[in-house]
């Protein structure tokens, strides 16, 4: 089974990388761009049943892939 984990900075935390891309696109004339936040995507394959995989990945995402002080994560099943 395949999953993706998206890790991003919390809404209130400044993302300078996203802001730099946002400013540069705006300066190229893409005035519709309002805001950009960068996130990291992990694609993980697991050999377990759905329920067990999701429990495991929730744990890994919370404890290792994200830092709860500054980041949030979302876990999605891919197939």
């Amino acid at each position, binding site marked *: 089974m395949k999953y993706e984990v998206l890790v991003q*900075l919390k809404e209130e*935390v*400044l993302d*300078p*990388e996203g802001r*730099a891309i946002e400013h540069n696109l705006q300066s190229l004339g893409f005035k519709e761009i309002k805001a950009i936040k960068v996130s990291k995507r992990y694609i993980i394959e697991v050999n377990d049943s759905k329920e067990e995989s999701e429990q495991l990945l929730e744990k890994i995402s919370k404890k*290792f*892939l994200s*830092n709860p*002080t*500054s980041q949030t994560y979302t876990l999605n099943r891919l197939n």
Partner: protein
Amino acid sequence: MIRSQKDPIALMNFPGSNCSYDCHFAFKNLWNIKLQDVFSCDRVLAGDIRGLIIPGGFSYGDYLRGGALASWAPIINELQGFIKKGGKVLGICNGFQILLEGKFLPGALLKNTSNRFICEDSFLEVSTGPSLYQRLLETKISLPIAHGEGRFFIDKDGLKNLEDNNQIVFRYQEEKNPNGSISNIAGICSKDGHILGMMPHPERAISPFSGGSGTAGKQVLETFLSMCL
């Protein structure tokens, strides 16, 4: 490896640590102390060690987040027991990131606001508080920084706790905050003052020959050393 019995400070090395030599050089030249090298895969911290330095660098390539992978290394399991027994810890730059990722200190270090790696002298204020660092260091010092991810972040409640417990040891001087750290924070300590994490590099400011920052770094290391003897 030959380990001296009398020298009480260890240096924790990870793949990618690149300030180990500078730390060895500082302690050897200033006080003729040989730091005892320990490595990420070690599972024992020698019993005679009373202080531990986690040096700067890019442990495990800073993959995932700066200091994250290092904070899972086997040697880190020994750190909790070492601290419980009263061991003193100094985490510098990437060492500070490792201490935060390992939850030995609160907060996180994020990409600098400028998106740039900053390598320059920083101008610091030492806050008042009960730790030996806060009591012994001069109130205004200068130390070099060299980091891309040094923006200290903590939520409002966490910041209030740090302030209430006098755990903020170093702040960048107002108007001279190089990386966007919240409340200008450059270094914090544990409540008992035994663990210090800091972004500036004291080991790079130990003599007039080691750069423009002078010798404030010597005072920081000397204070750490005095706690370990």
